[in-house]
């Protein structure tokens, strides 16, 4: 989406209900704007939601996020025909349905429900998950476009290190900085434009401001009642924030959200009419039934107050960490490494799950519960996403030993065939009954 287009939306819309419309506008107009950018001679880059957005935008590349495209197909209940097209082509139903929905798009002459999608001039493979590697290679198979892989090593945290952790971190950082330099050279060659350090620095400055705003927003769920639901509204906020990352429009967008939430807090309005329970949501939502699952919880007065995926819109610029504009590339590399998958064990993940980080994951979740005054955790294990889901059942075993109520649900991010409404409703109802009983017994004990 053109940044100015969203700014217009921001200026002309009142705060009440503004954010959902803005998110819709940001995402829905993305492909039309992409064609305009292409006509102007800008290059189209497919990248994933955690890619080096600020750097790519400094070359005026138009960014298309295949994950957001697939999630939107699912949320509009249009993903299944695309997925089935990919399966007819040969892809298995057990793989990532974001990928198969995207392949279905390629096989549908690039006709997305939101418009025709331009082909990529470059695919930026961020290495957060391994599926990105395969997805990039598949995209390359279809379009013969170059892939740039930006790798940042995963390091397990441990109690003691038989090697110099600081030296390792500095070496890893040099590895990432060297890759960023190669990416800059590749972008210069592709776009014919020289790297503009000031422009990049400006994008980082905007991202810093967005990061700070985002941290204020996600902290607002600590209010009772929580002014928004971390799943139902939080993921909408995130879609817009990712699409507009590192832009003036992004700042306007998040400012509008913040103002909206402040107003709700001032008016005492909560995400649910009568907040009785506060829960953490671990993993991504079930987009084909995006509203259905949170609403099942809302019926019992439960609201989601946090999800670790809230770290996505800022990518490492969480809490006090900001890009250091005096050393932009190095600082950028640090933030890429510090992201919540424990790439930097010197900084234990805050507010996140540290899925593959080793050690500390259980304590981290307990800390999250306390920070957000939550009553329990819902793990959403996703058929498509083993990155998010592989450890969830094991976490359930370990976290529940600390007396934390846990519910584990299984469905999918984009494939509606993996959603069983009756089964999910039963599980949610049983879980909520358990929470009610626990609360009653606690009250009785205090009384």
């Amino acid at each position: 989406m053109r940044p100015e287009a969203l700014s217009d939306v921001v200026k002309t819309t009142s705060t009440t209900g503004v954010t959902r419309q803005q998110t819709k506008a940001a995402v829905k107009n993305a492909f039309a704007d992409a064609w305009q950018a292409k006509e102007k001679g800008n290059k189209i880059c497919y990248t994933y939601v955690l890619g080096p957005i600020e750097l790519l935008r400094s070359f005026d590349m138009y960014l298309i996020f295949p994950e957001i495209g697939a999630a939107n197909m699912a949320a509009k209940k249009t993903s299944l025909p695309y997925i089935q097209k990919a399966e007819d082509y040969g892809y298995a139903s057990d793989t990532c349905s974001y990928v198969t929905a995207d392949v279905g798009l390629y096989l549908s002459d690039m006709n997305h429900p939101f418009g025709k999608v331009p082909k990529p001039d470059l695919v930026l493979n961020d290495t957060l998950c391994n599926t990105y590697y395969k997805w990039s290679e598949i995209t390359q198979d279809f379009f013969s476009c170059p892939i740039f892989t930006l790798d940042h090593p995963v390091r397990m945290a441990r109690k003691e290190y038989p090697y110099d952790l600081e030296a390792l971190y500095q070496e890893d950082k040099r590895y990432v900085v060297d890759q960023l330099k190669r990416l800059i050279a590749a972008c210069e060659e592709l776009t014919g434009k020289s790297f503009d350090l000031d422009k990049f620095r400006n994008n980082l400055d905007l991202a810093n401001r967005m990061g700070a705003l985002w941290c204020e927003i996600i902290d607002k769920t600590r209010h009772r009642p929580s002014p928004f639901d971390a799943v139902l509204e939080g993921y909408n906020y995130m879609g817009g924030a990712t699409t507009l990352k590192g832009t003036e429009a992004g700042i306007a967008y998040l400012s509008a959200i913040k103002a909206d939430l402040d107003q709700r807090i001032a008016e005492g309005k909560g995400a649910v009419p009568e907040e009785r329970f506060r829960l953490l949501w671990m993993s991504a939502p079930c987009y084909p039934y995006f509203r259905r699952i949170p609403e099942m919880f809302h019926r019992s007065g439960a609201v989601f107050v946090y999800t670790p995926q809230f770290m996505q819109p800022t990518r490492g610029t969480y809490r006090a960490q900001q890009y250091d504009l005096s050393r932009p590339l190095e600082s950028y590399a640090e933030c890429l490494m510090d992201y919540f998958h424990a790439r930097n064990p010197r900084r234990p993940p805050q507010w996140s799950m540290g899925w593959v980080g080793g050690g500390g994951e259980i304590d981290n979740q307990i800390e999250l519960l306390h920070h957000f005054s939550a009553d329990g955790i819902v793990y959403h294990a996703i058929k498509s996403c083993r990155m998010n889901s592989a450890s969830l059942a094991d976490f359930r075993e370990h976290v529940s030993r600390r007396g934390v109520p846990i519910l584990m649900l299984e469905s999918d991010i984009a494939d509606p065939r993996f959603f069983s409404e009756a089964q999910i409703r039963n599980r949610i109802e049983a879980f909520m009954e358990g929470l009610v009983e626990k609360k009653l017994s606690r009250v009785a004990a205090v009384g």
Partner: protein
Amino acid sequence: MPTIEDVVQSCREQIEDSSFRSVVDWKQRHPGGKVVGYFPVYFPAEIVAAAGMLPVGIFGGGNRIAVKRADAHMYSFMCSICKTTTELALNGQLAFLDAFIGHPICDAARHMPSLLERNMQGLLGDLLYYPGSIGTPLAVPYLRREYVRIRQLFEHLVGHPIKDEDLRDSIRQYNEARRLTREMYAIRRQSPWLLTALESYILTRVGTLLPVQEYIPLLRQVLEQIPKRDRRPIDKVRIVYEGAFCEQPPLEFIQALEEACYVVDDDFLLGARLIKGDVAEHGDPLLNLAEAYCNETTYCSTQHDPRRAKSDGFLEKCRTAEAQAVILAPAKFCEPGLDDQVHFMKRAEREGLPSLQMEFQERMKDFDGIRVQTETFAEALLFYSESAGVSPESTGTRFTGVGK
């Protein structure tokens, strides 16, 4: 001297033993000795062996253990190898492990070191993080540094330094093991009736359990006897199998394929043959290992190399093996394998190379479906398929063309 059949049978018993008696025995024979388990696909076992420790490949529990406890620790959509490895860990059958090293080969495997560490008291878990793109000039220096870190980790575990000279010795021994494995595969390509895929699989798999010093004479002993075997060729289709680079199919699965075809090449236990030639034996040993991983490997679904399409390597393998067809059968829930299955299938289609798509699970126990599918495919190739250039009068045209 024991016959090949005797050796294979003895190896089979070892690899089917989910209590890992041979490893436990090694520990008893080496008081204070340490065992380092590693997950597929590839692991530089040379570093572990140079420290005097025993490297052991952990490939799950096969179809001889029931998954009971692991289901509580893993959700439904996980591959068998992760689930049965977890089951072994929870049952105490991996208690002999002092360390477990995983790799970021896929989104599921990334979790394994942490997951095992949480559930096995005293276990040292670590991720050996290979470079995301092996085709850039940054990959080799990065990986050398990563190997230095892993060496330091193992030095801490074993309690003494690992000398460069010991590493070079270890590389020499593993080079020899790789050479002998390549010899086995060359025999299968040349005269598949002399050594079945099942036999070669068992002989390769046992190498993931034995100390390399014991493994080399075992392979030599077998290789010496192979030309003397009294076996004659049968009119069977020559196929290449692709999809088992990580999780391994049950032995019965391989047997079912071989009833209808000669499996003249495959990617079973790919880590044992990922490095195509010898690792350099002089100079900086960790640099040599890193060079070999980045520049001397065959294609693999879990490696990303911008210099070449994986299907180029795949076709080259089919050409070298003079395959008439391919069976593309990755493990269920294996994202890299299932995605690349389409990449290979489409390339095979373009090249006029017939292919059969299937899936397997390490835990599977019923092979009738596999047998019927393979037989039907082989019969179609032998008697009906004109696209493969096969006529009723001959066993068909072998695939030698490579294009893009």
